[in-house]
């Protein structure tokens, strides 16, 4: 439950923060949410990663569908990833997920060790 809650909170709050702040607010949001809902390091990372992986790839996917893959395929070409726009959706999700996951994991270590959650 806590895992799902953390994941949803990170995703929702990151989306709101992204409307007003820079892209890297995803790391701060994940960090703060994990301070409130502490979990073990691995689970923290996973919650942070999945939250933003889903947020970014879903938002990107919706944009991509409405755009009929037109821009993402060109950007993919630019990065030498070929013209499949879904690949850009995936890369977007992974990059965002990594940043958020690391931010989330950082919070874990502010808590005392060896407590099971």
């Amino acid at each position, binding site marked *: 439950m806590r895992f799902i809650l953390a994941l949803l909170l990170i995703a929702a709050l990151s989306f709101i923060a992204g409307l007003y702040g820079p*892209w890297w607010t995803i790391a701060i949001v994940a960090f703060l949410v994990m301070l409130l809902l502490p979990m073990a390091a691995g689970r923290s990372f996973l919650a942070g990663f999945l939250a933003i992986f889903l947020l970014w790839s879903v938002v990107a996917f919706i944009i991509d569908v409405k755009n009929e893959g037109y*821009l993402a395929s060109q950007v993919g070409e*630019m990065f030498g990833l070929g013209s499949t726009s879904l690949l850009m959706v995936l890369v*977007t999700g992974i*990059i*965002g997920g990594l940043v958020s996951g690391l931010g989330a994991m950082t919070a874990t*270590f502010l808590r*005392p060790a060896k407590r099971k959650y």
Partner: protein
Amino acid sequence: MRPIGFIITALVTIALVWALDRPWGSVPALGRLLSPQHGFWQNADPSDLDYNSSLQFDNLKGKVSVYFDERLVPHVFAENDEDVYFVQGYLHAKFRLWQMEFQTLAAEGRISEKLGADPRFIRHDREQRRLGMVYGAEQALKQIEAEPSTKAAADSYTAGVNAYINSLDPSSLPLEYKLLGYEPEPWSNKKGALFLMQMSKTLAGWDRDLESTNARSVFSAREMEKLFPVAHDSLVPIVPKGTVFDMPEKMPAPPDDADSVYFGNDTTVQASEQNMPDPKNGSNNWAVSGSKTASGAPILSNDPHLELSLPSIWYEMQLHTPTMNVYGATFPGTFSVIIGFNENVAFGFTNSQRDVKDYFSIRFRDASKKEYWFDSGWKASEIRIEEIRIKGRPTMKDTVAYTVFGPVMYDESLTHEVTGTKAIAVKWTGQQPGNESLMWLKLNRASNYADYEDAIRHFSCPGQNMLFASKDGTIALWQQAAFPARWKGQGMYLMPGEDSSYMWQGMIPQRENPHVINPPSGYIQSANQRPVDSSYPYYIPGNYILARGVTIDKYLSGMSRITPAHMMLLQQNTHSSFAEDAVPVLLRHMNEEGLDDKERSWLQEVRNWNFDAAAGLKAPTIFQTWFDSLEMVVWRDEFARIKGPRALPDEQTLLEAMIRDSIFTYADDIGTPETETLGQQVTKAFKMACADLKKEEATTGLLWWKHRQPAVNHLLKPLAAFARKVQVGGWSNTINATTTSHGPSWRMVVHLADEVEAYGIYPGGQSGNPGSRFYDNFIGDWAAGRYYRLWLMKEEEAKDKRVKWTMTFTNA
């Protein structure tokens, strides 16, 4: 708390964010770029994007309605002139902000500030400053702001651009800003002037004076005249041959010592401009009068050839106010319609190709450049310190000395090739004050020939062939600009700059500029050829292109009962008059002995060719490779003797020399003991060409379009993913002048019947955003030779089904 774990993960997180928030070489800041709420995804417009909106701005006096048609062309209806230019500025920025700013940054010599410390960028920026691009824009700005009508229009346009810029936030910036990592600056009237300076440089910034100076060290004055003739035999000038020109009141005269210290001089110059515009920037325009058309009304056609780029240099618009109703192609970066028509007249341009740039050698007193020798004394120069900001490096200060001959382009601080106190100043009409914008303000509102004649007087650079046609049946063309009145040979080479004797003695009076009005032939054509035959009293060197004019003249003279459809077909024409003249000469001199089967079949291909440079043929590839090889075989040996930068004679000169004189003296390879004949050289060139073609065959099949690979590139060539390839024929010497990167950047045909009937297209799209379906949507139709009907909309037609979206602008 586990401090070690915390510190490590915190540091790794921060490092990752840092690494993804900054560019690495040419890789942009990836975190920012990929974030779907900030980065490139925000530029991916939905295919069904709704452009309807209503906006309020304090600057507006009244209401402005903008009706976008299905091609996203805005039809702007304003209650007064200021408001229309405000909205033009706003729309240019909304759809083309990055390109218009980038072009002005380039004009100003600020590429390295945005793109980094590449030595090529720094050299570019220094050349721009030293050519006087910023100085020239400042001079022009004074003129623009001194004239109330251009000042008002420029102020409104600038306010409109800034209204859009102020509405942006980091996520809504155009994609290129995100990729390159900078943000737009406020627009200004000066940026508008800089934009026009860039046009001046593109169209009137070419010369080969220093290359000719070097060639003179090897060739005699007589040889130079043969190698670089003033006019070619087969010239079909714009002003019909046989026209009698008035003798000027005052003819420029050469200094007494010209033969010894100027024409006879044999020094060489190592310096050369590295960012010279492409000499193939050319264009066609022609008008036929009612006597030659099916309807009895004139038809005007124009297709300016420029570097084909995305976003396109052109943006289509209709501007309607109580004082005008004009439609056509606009330049994002400046106000007015540049090439177009209104309810009464149509206007179009080709480049004059006149050389308006000369060089003078200067001697400074010392390294400070504060004084130079002039008229038997030391004269103070005006020192201008150019600050060149460089991304990631300290600002560079470049000292540019201004003399009576213009700014010093080359000195030892720019190039180690010009040493000590020696320097070279460049005098260019682009540096002189002018108010080109005033011409367009007037032209957009012109209703007859007198209005046109009044409008064009204001135009001083770049020299243009200004074609005009009106409903009342007039067709006319003036070659218009401020052109120096030169004595024969003046400015062909680097000139002595130690006194006033070699200075320009004045400008050609405007009324003496070449012009033609309602000629008996019933048509006027211009295609970058020399405008007049050799009876014109002034010496007018230039980078003229001959063949297209010959072809156009041949077709137009034979046509009657012309319709717009005929004119569109003519714009698509890829017949090569040059090849038609050259192939028989080549075949006559060709020795077929010893050719293998493949070579024989290629020769046969050329022999059977109908001289159409069509996309899918092999013959144009074989012919062009052959002729290119021949130029190398003929000229390389003689020109290799030249120390320093050199330029070869043009293809027309070689062809006419071959036609005129079969024992053509340059045929001999001076590096060998025997005397080669033209026949030997033509055959040798064919074999050289075949060697190249054999290498190429596997990849292109020698098809003409694959050989040339024509493309519409992004303005920044490295962004190749945003470029589009096109499968089209043509060459720089055919009417459809599509080469690898240049071609008809806007095609327009206007039939001035009772209800004006106009067609046009450009290879791009109305949106400059690579994420919009309007980015490249015209390219397919352009490549296929199709046109769009241009709709001079009436405001009553606001409910017409062609209107897809409406934007309204009102006072806040």
